[in-house]
């Protein structure tokens, strides 16, 4: 087990280095110095040069990158070019919003996706077909458009739920839940069917297997076969699918936060993109990658627990 973690980390740590390096290089290639960005296009060349020198932005790119990396390892992601606030602090303050959204949607996807996939595998009939149709729809319908329709129906017309904003859990747990319902549901809904389809397919392939035939022939009750023997074999691939879904949910939070006016990492990303705040963009790129890496790591550990063969490899 420890071996799996270490092997994953050996891939993961360089990956984050590579991502940050690519982003760093791209921003230097894009032209326009940090000083220019801060002082604006009307600033004199001399004052830009002076500021660049002060910030160390006149050094070679590689030197700057190594410098940035040295600080990043200690958790210092530099200062926002636009606001002057430490990037790490800004990110940290916004994590709860984005994580509430992403984890909430993930739970929704797991609970509904796995349940409906299992029902389709056990009972057959329309459920399986429906999941396949919904999977196509989920992939095909743009989530930001669905979000607007949800806002229109449930927020404006029915006035059941708030249409924008985020209430921290500490302020009001019920307000927190209400502010999350619409964005979480819209974010998750398109992925539910995908998980359902994979769950169904994996359970069916386990049900067709020789060992299930042997268990049936030896008189095991169906619930034990399905919910223990089939379930454990199907769980690994479903988990892998869920981890991929989480990556796509993290991307989806950007749009949801924008639509529902939530002060999370996504809105930070969009505003940094609009303002060309390179330090923030860089910090976010690394942070997002780190999140994905952590999720993959957890998935690997869980898969190893579920699948003896994967563990041996």
């Amino acid at each position: 087990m420890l071996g799996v973690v270490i092997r994953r980390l050996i891939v993961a740590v360089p990956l984050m280095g590579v991502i940050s390096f690519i982003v760093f290089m791209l921003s230097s290639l894009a032209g326009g110095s940090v000083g220019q960005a801060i002082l604006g296009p009307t600033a004199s060349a001399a004052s830009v040069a002076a500021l660049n020198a002060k910030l160390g932005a006149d050094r070679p790119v590689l030197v700057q990158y190594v410098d940035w990396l040295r600080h990043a390892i200690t958790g210092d992601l530099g200062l926002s070019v636009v606001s002057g606030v430490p990037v790490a602090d800004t990110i940290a303050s916004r994590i709860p919003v984005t994580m509430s959204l992403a984890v909430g949607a993930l739970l929704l996807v797991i609970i509904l996706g796995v349940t409906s996939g299992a029902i389709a595998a056990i009972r057959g009939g329309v459920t399986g077909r429906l999941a396949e149709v919904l999977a196509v729809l989920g992939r095909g319908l743009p989530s930001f458009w669905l979000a607007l329709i949800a806002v229109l129906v449930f927020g404006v017309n029915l006035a059941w739920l708030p249409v924008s904003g985020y209430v921290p859990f500490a302020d009001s747990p019920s307000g927190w839940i209400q502010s999350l319902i619409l964005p979480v549901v819209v974010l998750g809904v398109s992925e539910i069917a995908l998980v359902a389809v994979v769950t169904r397919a994996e359970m069916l392939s386990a049900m067709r297997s020789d060992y299930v035939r042997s268990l049936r022939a030896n008189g095991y009750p169906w619930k034990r076969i399905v919910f223990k023997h089939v379930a454990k074999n199907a769980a690994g691939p479903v988990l892998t699918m869920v981890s991929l879904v989480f990556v796509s949910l993290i991307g989806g939070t950007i749009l949801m936060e924008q639509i529902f006016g939530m002060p999370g990492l996504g809105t930070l990303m969009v505003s940094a993109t609009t303002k060309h705040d390179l330090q923030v963009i860089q910090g976010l790129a690394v942070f997002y990658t780190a999140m994905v890496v952590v999720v993959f790591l957890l998935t690997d550990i869980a898969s190893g627990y579920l699948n003896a063969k994967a563990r041996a490899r």
Partner: protein
Amino acid sequence: MSAVIEGAATQEQSRRAAERGAGFLPRLVRQPIAVACSLILLVVVLACVFAEWVSPYGPLDQDLQNTAAGPSASHLLGTDQLGRDILSRLLHGGQVTLLGIVQAVVVCAVIGLFLGLTAGTLGGWVETVAMRLCDLLLAVPGLVMLLVILGIYGNNEAAAMITLGVIMAPTLARVVYSATIAVREELYVASARVAGLTSFQIMRRHILSGVTGPALTQISIVAAVACIAEAGIGYLGLGVAPPAPSWGNLVTDAQNMMPISAWMLVPTGGIIAVVTLSLTLLGNGIRDAYMGRSSGSSKAFSWRALAVTVSQAASPAGGGAAPLGQESILSVKGMTIRLPRGSSEVTVVDDVNFDVAPGEAVAIVGESGCGKSMTISGVLRVLPMGAHVAAASIAFKGAELTSLSEHEMNAYRGTGIGFISQEPISSLNPAFTVGHQLEEAVRLHRGVGKGEARQIARELMVRVRLPEPDAVAKKYPHELSGGMAQRIAIARALAGEPELLIADEPTTALDVSVQCEILDLLRDLREQTGMALILVTHDWGVVAEACDRALVMYAGQVVESADVRSIIAHPAHPYTRALLQSSSVGIAPRQLLPVIAGTVPVPGSWPHGCRFASRCELAEDACRTGPIPMVTLDEGSAARCIRTDVDELVRT
């Protein structure tokens, strides 16, 4: 000479590959959904490309008298907040989106095909490097990277879409890679290489034809994702700057208009949905057409559908509830099994009768496809989906099994009748240790607690002569040899202390020396417990070694039934004789083993008369005119043959 043969094989295989490619388009055209999606996409693309001529208004033409209007004759899709025609703006805006899709798809296709094909065909370190690169890219969250690029390059959409293409390339590369590997491992590429074609020719002629379908499917998915991503960028205000239209910023306009009129949401989001859905469905259509499936043909498989339909057939004339059945532990009367094939059913086991006495070992012998395994699966009701068992009676210790529900069957399966299957390793669940599986069986069948179950499981492992039972118990099935796994499977079947053990070719998958050990074990266990045994096999050696009586099956029927000693010495049915002659039993060393000419007729094409007639050297016209009944011979043996009288003549 061999090169010529190889060349011929290659031509044959090329032709098959070409057929697969050629059959692809017609199959695609036969799918109404795929055709409809292609047409929709074609219309949208043409309308957008020729927007200057097609659209009724300019994209920026304002009509301030007529703002935020719904659909009308003059504005088919209504107008926006400035009275601009939405249809015209959609068509012009579509140009940006379509361009973005093309950029992403081209980049993705070039990189993905290159990586996948080189990794798949060249192998070695290229394969390793390319696949590692793919792993790396898969961990990059797509939308985040797009925003990074847009942030750095100041709303440069082309840069964003190219980046998207790069990010999506590894998925395509993986698809192409696995398709290439599959083709590479197929015989025809190997033979093409032997025939002296260059590797470029191999790639072009074979691999591309195998890769096209999966690659096109994946590319249509990439196009759908690119469409949504481009619209998303536009929606976030990071793409084309207003007043120029794009599909994304039209949704933003619609959002701003929501308090006044919700209509604008319909056409703006609708066009994105229509295009992405069409691309996704077209991708599904391509996949189905490539795999030779017609859309929606897959039968609904489910756990519930596994339950076998059982019906009690009328007793055969003169049969009735045989008093003989009283002393049998298992008595099967008139069992017929049908399996679904296409839209109809096909009979695979035809009116089978047999009895097993307590403690008796009965072999069911025959070639593959004669219905041996089906027969025992029918008794246990573990048949493929949609199977139908009809029998006058299947009685276990006097209890009628045909009238039991699937749930009620569990009172007999495991405890009354134990089962071991042909593939020992795959008959055990790969996800649990074998010790756990054994303990589970003990707890289930004997209703004992955890500690006691562990103790009994250990005793069972000792009884099946597993060395180091404690160490083996901690292992997973894939860590065991076939022989060890079969011992575990036998131990599991013994957990319920069955009075009848059914073994489906228990030694076929094992080495010869292990086969003997397993047979010895089965015989010894039978002596200890007095349980009866049904052993399915095609090996007369196994029959002679382990069984008292043999049932020979051919084409779904029992053709001969007799005790083992007499059947080996004096086979009555020509098929039994042929089977025995083609095995090594009773044949002098170094003598060539004859094979039976011809093949077993497949279910559904069984002749009306004797089913063995076409392969039988004794066949005469009378054999082919009608069904042959079982003829009772002396000493409780019977054969389905009308020419048993000439046997003695022929044998000498």
